[in-house]
């Protein structure tokens, strides 16, 4: 009896060791915010990643030439609680303990900036989604690649919208969350507004987690600007929009970051009406093989329609996917293409493939900066949406740029 047991044990051990040493999957590690203030956006991003996991694994995985076979993708992920402190610890764990081959960033520029340090210290490639801050990319990192249109080109369209709506507009108020992302975006928007001859009458930040904007609104009302732009992420942006409406702030354009592009923004009801937002992607964009051919770059991956269909199958609430989810899938596709091009899992080869990449997917064009802002996104473009009433229901429609619009831009003043 004992002999048989010993034999089993030996066999089991041999098996276990054998398994742990053969490379049978590509491990992609990341953290997501299952809890905390970034939960709404991070959840969407995660859905996009799940769609990619399904997409790639139903094909049998990613073909790695150097191993001569297809390897399925395996996710390892943790809850970062929307907290920076947890992120560094968890990314070190993903790299050292879980032996992740590639990393995907957490949601938000703040968390990405801290995760980037760990990725860089251990020389792991990390695809940055949910982070638009430019300032991450002038720190001399060499392994972080950004999918979002960066902050410097993020909110400039809001100024153009204001000019189109009211050519006599002269004053802009900017109120932003004191985070990497919103600060970078709003500084760029301020410079752009000044260059267009507008006066920036208010440029002030609020602490993350702010729930009371009364002081800011009192200030805005006394300065009487033509547009209020800024915001930060979902929770604060939604509250700001609500309080702007409650206290009757009469301006032409209210353009806030992130919040209005998340479907849950409609929870605040009438206060959502005529609020605009920049977006990385909306259902309604016209990215396809034809558009790729026009730019003379290759097309890669599934179509917009396929993504929307898959999203609705996962989400089940019937709402349209937003850009957070789209970027999740896009990050996966970019990684997949880079590995296929490199033909190996070696970080340096994949890095070289990413440097050379210039491709169009359902998400738009993707191309990375290789100069001083190494890894920054230079291919992708923004669109703008506005919440409008369509058949008595609140809906977000593409309103800018003019060549992509689904509806006409309406002044926020129409609310009152």
């Amino acid at each position, binding site marked *: 009896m004992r002999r048989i047991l010993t034999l089993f044990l030996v066999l089991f051990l041999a098996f276990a060791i054998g398994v742990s040493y053969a490379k049978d999957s590509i491990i992609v590690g990341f953290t997501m915010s299952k809890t905390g203030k970034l939960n709404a956006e991070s959840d969407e991003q995660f859905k996009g990643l799940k769609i990619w996991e399904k997409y790639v694994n139903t094909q049998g995985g990613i073909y790695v030439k150097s191993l001569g076979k297809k390897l399925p993708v395996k996710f390892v992920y943790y809850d970062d609680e929307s907290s920076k402190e947890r992120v560094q610890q968890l990314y070190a764990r993903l790299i050292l303990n879980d032996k992740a081959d590639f990393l995907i960033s957490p949601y938000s520029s703040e968390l990405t900036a801290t995760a980037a*340090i760990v990725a860089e210290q251990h020389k792991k490639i990390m695809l940055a989604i949910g982070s638009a801050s430019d300032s991450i990319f002038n720190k001399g990192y060499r392994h972080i690649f950004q999918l979002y249109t960066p902050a410097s080109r993020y909110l400039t369209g809001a100024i153009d919208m204001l000019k189109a709506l009211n050519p006599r507009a002269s004053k802009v108020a900017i109120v932003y969350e004191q985070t990497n992302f919103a600060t970078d975006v709003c500084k760029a928007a301020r410079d752009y507004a000044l260059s267009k001859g507008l006066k920036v009458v208010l440029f002030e930040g609020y602490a993350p987690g702010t729930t009371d904007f009364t002081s800011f609104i009192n200030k805005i009302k006394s300065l009487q600007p033509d547009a209020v732009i800024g915001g930060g992420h979902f929770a604060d942006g939604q509250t700001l929009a609500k309080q702007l409406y409650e206290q009757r702030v009469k301006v032409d354009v209210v353009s806030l970051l992130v919040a209005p592009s998340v479907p849950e923004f409609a929870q605040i009801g009438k206060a959502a009406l005529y609020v605009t937002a920049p977006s990385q992607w909306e259902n309604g964009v016209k990215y396809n093989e034809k558009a790729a051919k026009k730019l003379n770059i290759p097309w890669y991956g599934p179509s917009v329609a396929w993504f929307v269909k898959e999203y609705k199958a996962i989400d089940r609430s019937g709402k349209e996917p937003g850009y957070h989810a789209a970027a999740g899938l896009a990050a996966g596709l970019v990684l997949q293409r880079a590995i296929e091009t490199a033909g190996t899992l070696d970080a340096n080869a994949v890095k070289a493939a990413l440097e050379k990449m210039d491709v169009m997917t359902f998400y738009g064009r993707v191309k990375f900066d290789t100069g001083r802002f190494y890894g920054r996104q230079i291919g992708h473009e923004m669109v703008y949406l506005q919440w409008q009433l369509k058949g008595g229901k609140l809906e977000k429609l593409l309103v800018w740029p003019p060549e992509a619009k689904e509806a006409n831009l309406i002044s926020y003043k129409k609310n009152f």
Partner: protein
Amino acid sequence: MTKKYVLFWLLPIVLLIALYPIVTDNFLVRENIFLMLSYIVFASSMNIIMGYTGYVSFGHIVFYGIGSYVGILLINNLHVHFVIAVLCAALVAGVIALLIGEAVLRLRGAIFAIATIGINEAVKSLVANVDSLGGAVGIFMDFSVYDSYGGPDKALWIAYYAMVILTVLTILVSYFVRNSKLGLGLLAIREDEDTALVVGINTKRFKSIAYFLSAIFPAMAGTIFAFKSGNIVPDDAFHIVKSVEMIFINVFGGLGTVSGPVLGAIIYEKLKDYLLTNPTLKDLHLAVSGVTLLLIVIFAPSGIVGWFRERFKVVRGVLE
């Protein structure tokens, strides 16, 4: 006075723990030990003002924050060498402690505690509003800084060695303060400040020195932390919960003894790591720490070391 043997066993234990990741070359263990050592530094320095002198400095983390900022500004913006930056951080925090101490050390008891919380919050919101200090977004170190230390790998090890040295230094200072005239004066202040004054102790000067000493070590740890993690944000640098951790460790280990905060820190780090990684307890770690603290305060107010000391009078000299 009984002869004090505490260093003979305490230092070897700490050094053995500190050497472990160096010998095994294990990064993950190193990360954990780094945290453990930092807890020893925090708790031992807090012990000087709180344990020996009886002043609960609830906002003590302010010195860690100041140290982090001074350090990262020197290293990142002025390209000062890491070691010099650590020393400068100690200097700046020490001077600030003397100035603040001049004012708030006149307060006693809970009022002193509230005042230190106020100072921490005030400094936090000041830093968050000064653009040249990075504002609320904080400062991110340029990655090329690590190049002059032989790349990020080497830099992480340098930070680790620095923390080991700082830990030993803190324990030594804590020991010598405890077993000196200064220490006796501080204990007298803790027991009854008015009587201490009457019997001729310069309470004001003694308290200032204690406050100074307890401020410089967290500041140095702050620079090391900032150098290692490559960024610094006001909300993390001045997080009041970290002060509470320092207090917790002391109460847990044994307030007012040399070995108490050290043992407390070692056990606390293990406990916290276990709570944070255990799948069922992970989400409840705050509540579990709360219950633990409650039980300790009610049933074992003198901590682990105190518990031993009360039962085995012989070991007194070994523990203090």
